[in-house]
């Protein structure tokens, strides 16, 4: 609570708006709403993914799938210590090894502070690292770079580098990172934040966010029950099957080309130029096929090193992370300590929510502020409460570096919030679904949180234009058979339970993200669609082709998509923040509309008709009454060769003024073995409202993949550390991600709504469904055996320990049994079994007292709120 009165300076970044009349301004005014056509020909159809056959036949090329003559191989020596100064470093032995071409230590490279977070400029992440430093801050941190003729030689050379470390005291516990006696991880003088936000590295305090709506103290007083509990969402790695890979080479014009597995090619170009201190025009970044990213490749991790080696040696080079390096030295999900205190009345209204978070960003502050902000902004608006408080702090520790990971804070906070929702319902004896239905946000409603919490600056006010959550809930209940299963654990050794949760996310970062598109027409009526949007396996190339085809009036197979090449395609922020379909899709409509207009104009000229009489259907233009027609091919040929020649084509971009949330309801059924503690997820149901799905099959696939990733995270994925912060299980043998035999029965369904601000009604779908498994399974375990697990993953050991604890404290599982032996009633009316079997761990009264005691300081409005 020490920081609660600290003022944050979440200020609007200085953007100078030129004062020009909109009528003559070349600055485009993007539409707030896209027109809805009467029928869809290309959109809303599960058309074949444009790259699918190439992927299935192995002909599509990923970064490493091209051959380069004379290729150097890079290895980076990682630190064996979690916190140490490099007192001396001697690479002479390594350099002597035959086949070694270059070795770089911190002495050989310019010191340019920057962030590796691939975010918009200026980034809301601290500039707290450089290419190579004389200090290491986690096990695996960069010490030296070796380039050699083979990976084996490079690896051997690494072992020949003599490093003398002065080992420093390390801190691993995020709750102790800001203690007085904690070692300062970033004591360098040149670390800083590029925008005016809170940053206090001297106390390992990387970011701070504070927002208040109403008065939580007052809210707690109004409550019949006040509950408080702390949750500990854990470390996780993205585990894209393709490891981070980058190839660098000099092209025929002596420019540096980076062929990289990145989600953010334009940010990668900018940050590499910054780090290597060369002009942006000297760099081209190409993103070929990418083998999955999930946020892990929203980080500029390899490009600087590869660029350095190629510029210094004038030879092409490759750096591909090993799986162990992926785990230890790439990025992870921010582990957090999430404390929720909430007040609820017996009638089911929520009077106050206080969410306090300590987020562990590890050794560097990549995405530190924004992941933290998202904990509030993507979770708190879901339920109505007059009094809300969000206090978040990100701290440095000497552990692996966190970063962007699908869900981006919402995963961690939704776990806490949705478990708390069940706890609240239980405390007032209300069905948890009814409780959510009573409180969740609905169409036409807004939340003050939207404006109060942005990404590094104030957010954007908006109201909900589309919400299919109600249908997600009702349909999901049917599919999991809630009425029959809730509160009926059975009597044997193996008990069953069901749990659920509601979720929201966003669709792009409003008024920050931008996507741009270029379309040109070819004389056979096909189109090249060149765009910055980054398909990393999601299918966005296909989605964009469908949107373009729908707008132009042709088939998606006539759209030739080329994405993410900084020389060839216009800018796009990249694939993150659930933005591509919603944001870049808008740019596609803007661009294709312009091209369509040109097509109509040429057709009118050719047919001797008025433009307003021309209609388009399946790649042909028709005159009035469909008496005459010309095909797209004829139109382009005419425009190219015959009369008043010009290239039919256009460029356009798009920003959004809103970030409409997709909604979801997830349900899990589990079986808990009370003798071994083993939890088996039997069935998982995920219903999602992603607006109008551009390609339902792809949207469904996104949901299935995210759901299983979430389940795997909840059940088995875990970073195990040694005493000195070394990850002990950096491989798929010991860091268990789900495979086919582990999967429960998964059912997913889409609830169509129409989002007017989205392209053809679309909202995002990619991230939301990773957030559901932790709370849904956690709630299901509670329903089955009456224990509340706050420290995932839900391994057998933890479940067994909690069951033993429960038995010791006298609240035996048998009480659950006794309850369940009653005649089944209608679930919606029934008091939850667990609520009777075991009162909340922190009983209502003392919690309320604690709330009073802890609320010494008057609640302050935040900077954001004051601005109103």
């Amino acid at each position, binding site marked *: 609570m020490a920081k609660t009165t600290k003022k944050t300076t979440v200020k609007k970044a200085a953007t100078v708006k030129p004062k020009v009349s909109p009528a003559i301004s070349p600055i485009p005014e993007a539409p707030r709403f896209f027109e809805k056509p009467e029928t869809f020909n290309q959109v809303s159809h599960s058309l*074949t993914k444009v790259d699918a056959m190439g992927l299935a036949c192995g002909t599509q090329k990923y970064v490493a799938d091209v051959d380069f003559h004379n290729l150097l191989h890079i290895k980076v020596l990682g630190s064996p210590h979690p916190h140490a100064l490099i007192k001396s470093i001697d690479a002479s032995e390594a350099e002597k090894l035959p086949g070694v071409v270059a070795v770089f230590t911190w002495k050989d490279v310019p010191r340019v502070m920057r962030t590796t977070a691939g975010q918009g400029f200026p980034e809301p992440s601290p500039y707290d690292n450089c290419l190579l430093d004389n200090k290491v801050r986690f096990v695996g941190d960069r010490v030296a770079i070796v380039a050699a003729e083979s990976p084996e030689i490079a690896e051997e050379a690494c072992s020949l580098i003599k490093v003398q470390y002065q080992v420093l005291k390390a801190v691993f516990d995020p709750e102790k990172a800001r203690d007085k006696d904690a070692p300062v991880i970033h004591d360098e003088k040149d670390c800083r934040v590029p925008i005016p936000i809170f940053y206090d590295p001297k106390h390992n305090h990387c970011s701070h966010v504070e927002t208040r709506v109403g008065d939580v103290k007052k809210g707690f007083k109004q409550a019949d029950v006040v509950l408080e509990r702390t949750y500990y969402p854990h470390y996780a790695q993205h585990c894209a099957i393709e490891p981070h890979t980058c190839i660098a080479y000099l092209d025929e014009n002596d420019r540096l080309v980076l062929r990289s597995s990145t989600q953010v090619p334009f940010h990668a170009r900018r940050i590499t130029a910054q780090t290597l201190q060369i002009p942006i025009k000297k760099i081209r970044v190409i993103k070929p096929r990418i083998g999955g990213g999930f946020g892990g490749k929203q980080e500029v991790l390899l490009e600087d090193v590869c660029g350095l080696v190629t510029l210094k040696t004038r030879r092409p080079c490759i750096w591909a992370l090993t799986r162990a390096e992926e785990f230890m030295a790439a990025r992870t999900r921010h582990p957090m300590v999430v404390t929720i205190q909430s007040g609820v009345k017996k009638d089911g209204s929520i009077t106050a929510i206080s969410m306090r978070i300590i987020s562990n960003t590890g050794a560097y502050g990549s995405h530190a502020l924004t992941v933290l902000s998202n904990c509030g902004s993507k979770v708190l608006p879901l339920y109505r409460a007059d009094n809300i408080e969000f206090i978040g702090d990100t701290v440095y520790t000497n552990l692996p570096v966190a970063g962007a990971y699908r869900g981006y804070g919402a995963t961690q906070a939704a776990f806490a919030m949705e478990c708390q929702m069940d706890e609240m319902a239980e405390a007032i004896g209300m069905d948890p679904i009814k409780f959510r239905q009573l409180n969740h946000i609905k169409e036409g409603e807004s939340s003050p949180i939207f404006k109060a919490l942005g990404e590094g600056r104030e957010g954007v006010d908006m109201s909900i234009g589309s919400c299919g959550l109600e249908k997600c809930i009702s349909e999901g209940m049917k599919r999991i058979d809630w009425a029959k299963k809730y509160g009926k654990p059975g009597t044997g050794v193996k008990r069953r339970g069901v749990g659920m949760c509601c979720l929201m996310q966003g669709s792009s970062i409003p008024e920050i993200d931008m996507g741009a598109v270029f379309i040109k027409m070819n004389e056979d009526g096909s189109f090249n669609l060149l765009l910055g949007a980054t398909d990393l396996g999601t299918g966005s190339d296909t989605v964009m082709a469908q949107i373009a085809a729908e707008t132009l009036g042709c088939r998606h197979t006539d759209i030739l998509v080329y994405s993410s090449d900084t020389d060839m395609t216009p800018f796009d922020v990249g694939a993150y923040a659930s933005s591509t379909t919603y944001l870049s899709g808008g740019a596609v409509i803007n661009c294709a509309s312009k091209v369509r207009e040109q097509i109509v104009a040429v057709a009118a000229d050719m047919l001797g008709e008025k433009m307003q009489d021309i209609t388009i259907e399946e790649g042909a233009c028709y005159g009035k009454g469909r008496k005459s027609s010309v095909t797209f091919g004829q139109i382009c040929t005419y425009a190219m060769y015959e009369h008043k020649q010009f290239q039919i084509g256009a460029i356009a971009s798009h920003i959004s003024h809103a970030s409409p949330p997709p909604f979801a309801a997830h349900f899990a059924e589990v079986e808990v073995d009370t003798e071994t503690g083993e939890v088996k997820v039997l069935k998982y149901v995920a219903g999602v409202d992603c607006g109008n799905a551009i390609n339902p099959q792809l949207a469904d696939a996104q949901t299935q993949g995210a759901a299983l990733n979430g389940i795997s995270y909840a059940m088995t994925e875990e970073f195990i550390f040694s005493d000195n912060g070394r990850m002990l299980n950096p491989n798929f043998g010991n860091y268990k991600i789900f495979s086919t035999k582990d999967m429960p029965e998964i059912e997913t369904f889409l609830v169509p709504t129409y989002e007017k601000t989205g392209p053809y009604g679309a909202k995002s779908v990619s991230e939301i469904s990773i957030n559901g498994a932790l709370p849904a399974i956690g709630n299901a375990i509670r329903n089955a055996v009456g224990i509340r697990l706050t420290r995932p993953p839900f391994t057998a050991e933890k479940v067994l320990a909690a069951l033993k604890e429960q038995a010791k404290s006298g609240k035996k599982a048998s009480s659950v049994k006794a309850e369940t032996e009653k005649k089944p009633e209608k679930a919606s009316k029934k008091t939850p079994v667990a609520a009777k079997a075991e009162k909340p761990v922190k009983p209502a009264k003392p919690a309320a007292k604690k709330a009073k005691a802890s609320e010494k300081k008057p609640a302050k409005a935040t900077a954001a709120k004051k601005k109103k």
Partner: protein
Amino acid sequence: MKLNTRINGRDLCLEIKPNATLLETLRQAGFKSVKFGCGEGMCGACAVLVDGKPRTSCITLAGTVEGSEILTVEGMGNPDQPHALQQAFVDAGATQCGYCNPGSLIAAKALLDSNPNPTAEDVKDALDGNLCRCSGYVKRIEAVLSAADSTASTTGQKKSTRGKK
């Protein structure tokens, strides 16, 4: 040293280092569908058929496949004439990033070669060694089952009743 194999129906004599893995040997020979995922035989991205049996090529020494017949996804079919499994993956929407697809298709082919009429459980067993982070596996299981159906219908094999997925 020299390695004599038959890869995707073509006899090849490759010059290899004695400690070369089959993965790097195949990739150097141009068979880029064979992917590196973990280097420890844990993820299946590098799976190929060696004499009809799926093997993780990243932990197989190239020298041990002397005289063997190897199949990679390039040898299963091409976009012009895809294998039934490749077509099924495309139709079912089982390709997302696609990086794990070649290995999974190889494992699926090994399954259908030995069991043309698998249940969903059989498919799960066969593909268990092929990790995928994008898909949640649902669509690829459907794809393998539907490929089995289409192969069976063309070869006139009788279907047994399948277990629920």
